[in-house]
């Protein structure tokens, strides 16, 4: 038995732009146990329900996380709409889907870039982020904001995407697809990438089930779980299958996310083809919500959970966000056990950590 020592990881660490602190108990170079301590970004935005009414909360919720901002707003609005019992117009549903998938693409490209940076492939990192800018340009063109674009409101969306912009979205999708095909070759076939990712941090299906992991992290271990199957927004009208991989290692997680990019392109194309030519963008909401609802949406990082409880007053009684990264932290701790110290940075990256949504 080697000598045991404790190595602190973070909060300020070169591999991650965000602060998370993990105490790693190591024996020689092997990690025996990982104890996370979080709270560097805890703001307490759930507590804001006392000060903001349910419409204003949409803006607060969108700032839970700057990466999946749109999907946070969407999850919250869908939950409140369920309480009101309203059905939003079809065009709004499709617009939400298009924005959600564009957001997913930008998030996955960001993650692929950070992964490449994590194993020291700077060139690939820059490639991913260069392509990502094209996707961000789409967000800016359609909504006016690069990352946080408040287009959601309870009852629908605020902005329309006119037909000429839909055309630009399609042409950009073609361009991005070409670029992605090139990048896919490097991610899937490059020898050094494979030797760095294959067989590292394996989690089995049983472990995933026990630890309650969600999203691409769970799908990489063969769990067929994609909350888009629940049929919110326009997903019931689109054709897609959850992408899974059986291996459960870092390479599988990379594979799932890469394939999901192509899936998102496909979904955007379908949505643009099927979107009703015209129609209302929102339904009028009268009064205040009364009741409670549990809403689940599939974010780039996995299943996000919204619990909204209201009692007929403008201010909600309780609004709870359970973000996918929070659900994946137990999985991360399990994964870190019995790995090499040098892999820790990479393994933390593969759950797609977003600390600001973990801690809210």
């Amino acid at each position, binding site marked *: 038995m080697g000598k045991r020592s404790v190595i602190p990881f973070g*909060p*300020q*660490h*070169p591999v991650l*732009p*965000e*602060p998370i602190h993990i105490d790693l108990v190591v024996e020689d170079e092997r990690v025996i146990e990982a104890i996370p301590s979080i*709270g*560097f*970004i*805890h*703001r*307490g*935005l759930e*507590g*804001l329900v006392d*000060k903001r009414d349910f419409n204003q909360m949409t*803006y*607060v919720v969108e*700032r*839970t*996380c*700057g*990466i999946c*901002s749109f999907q946070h707003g969407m999850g919250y609005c869908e939950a409140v709409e369920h309480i009101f019992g309203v059905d939003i117009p079809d065009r709004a549903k499709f617009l939400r889907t298009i924005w959600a998938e564009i957001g997913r693409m930008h998030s996955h490209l*960001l993650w692929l*870039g950070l992964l490449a940076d994590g194993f020291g492939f700077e060139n690939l*990192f*820059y490639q991913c*982020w*260069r392509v990502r*800018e094209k996707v*961000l340009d789409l967000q800016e063109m359609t909504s006016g*904001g*690069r*990352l*946080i674009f408040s287009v959601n409101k309870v009852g629908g969306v605020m902005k329309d995407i006119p037909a000429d912009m839909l055309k630009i979205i399609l042409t950009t999708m073609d361009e991005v697809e070409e670029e992605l095909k090139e990048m896919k070759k490097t991610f899937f076939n490059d020898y050094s990438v494979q030797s760095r990712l294959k067989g590292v941090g394996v989690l089995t299906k049983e472990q995933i089930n026990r630890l309650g992991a969600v999203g691409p992290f769970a799908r990489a271990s063969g769990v067929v779980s994609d909350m888009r199957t629940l049929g919110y927004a326009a997903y019931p009208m689109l054709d897609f299958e959850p992408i899974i991989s059986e291996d459960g290692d870092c390479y599988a997680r990379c594979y799932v996310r890469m394939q999901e990019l192509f899936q998102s392109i496909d979904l955007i194309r379908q949505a643009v083809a099927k979107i009703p030519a015209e129609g209302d963008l929102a339904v009028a909401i009268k009064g205040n919500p009364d009741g409670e609802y549990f809403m689940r949406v599939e974010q780039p990082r996995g299943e996000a959970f919204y619990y909204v409880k209201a009692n007929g007053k403008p201010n909600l009684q309780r609004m709870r966000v359970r973000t996918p990264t929070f659900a994946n932290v137990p999985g991360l701790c399990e994964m870190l056990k019995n790995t090499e110290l040098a892999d820790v940075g990479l393994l933390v990256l593969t759950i797609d950590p*977003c*600390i*600001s*949504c973990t801690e809210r």
Partner: protein
Amino acid sequence: MANITRSPWLLHYDGSSCNGCDIEVLACLTPVYDAERLGVMNTGDPMQADILLVTGGINSQNQDTVKQLYDQMPRPKVVVAVGVCACTGGVFKDCYNILGGADTTIPVDVYVPGCAARPQAIMDGIIKAVGIFQQRSNEYKAQVKEKKKAAKKGAQN
């Protein structure tokens, strides 16, 4: 110290931001915006950094971390608060765990507004910070010169 004035290094710390400004800071350093052409470079080590970019507000836990990072940086140093949360607290100002902007803990020289701050605005902030950094190092050099002169004089007398 004399030779580094033209290429200050950046240290980025994420306070309690929503990540929006952080990835915009990162986007600044990647090819499309490329802040590195201004001579700055991103580093993960506070001991080698000259400009500190803080995103997000200050909460009770990261206050000490921000203070420590600031203290570890060698003088002269410049602090840029990126995003409205780092400037004032932003939407989260009323949250129970937010103390306010970055200036509640450390002195801030440049404020970059925006939610999330646009890369162009961040670049502008960095350029301003480089200017302040140069001015401060000039002042510092002048001080050193003064001191040397005084010491020489003292030796002669």
